[in-house]
């Protein structure tokens, strides 16, 4: 698994807004990459 970035900074946002960012995941292996779970902290 290769990630182009691990952190994204939205800088200034107005309270109440929903912020959304998509991280790109590359599978450079020979097997299917399975994302089993993403647990927000």
């Amino acid at each position: 698994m290769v990630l182009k970035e691990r952190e994204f900074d939205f800088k200034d946002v107005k309270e109440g807004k929903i912020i959304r960012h998509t991280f790109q995941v590359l599978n450079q292996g020979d097997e299917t990459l399975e994302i089993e779970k993403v647990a927000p902290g």
Partner: protein
Amino acid sequence: VASFDRAIPPGGEGKITLSVRTKSYEGAHRWSAEVHTNDPKMKTIDLYVKAFVKVPIYLSPRYVNFNGREGQSLTRVVEIRAGRDEPLTLTPSQFNLEGKLTYTVDEIEKGRIFKIRFTSIPGAPQTYHGFLNLKTNYPEKPEINIRIRGRFVKVKKPAGESS
């Protein structure tokens, strides 16, 4: 909240999307999400999004807690900062802890920074919850509510000492 592609074929590209509702946050924040995969070299990995959440008025701290012993007088200070260029005005409107606390409002920097100083009135062991409301001149935030909690415990007397 997270959404993601569950399976990515070899050579393929997938997505992990993180969404954060910023309501009730203020100032600098960083949110994380732990990603679990079947990649033996990267079983888990943390992703982060961060932002500075702008509000019309900043409160620090947002709540007041008094924890002490009976008869003790404690002081807590809340700083209020204007988040906009327009000068901020504050007017106390409601306070329901009369007799338990006193407070003062000091304008540290005109229209920009205020300090609310709460001081507990020494008394018997007790627990209380209350608030101070302040009216503002900002239409998008016409009122500030400072919640206050107090817990004053009984002082244990040394063994053998009569009360």
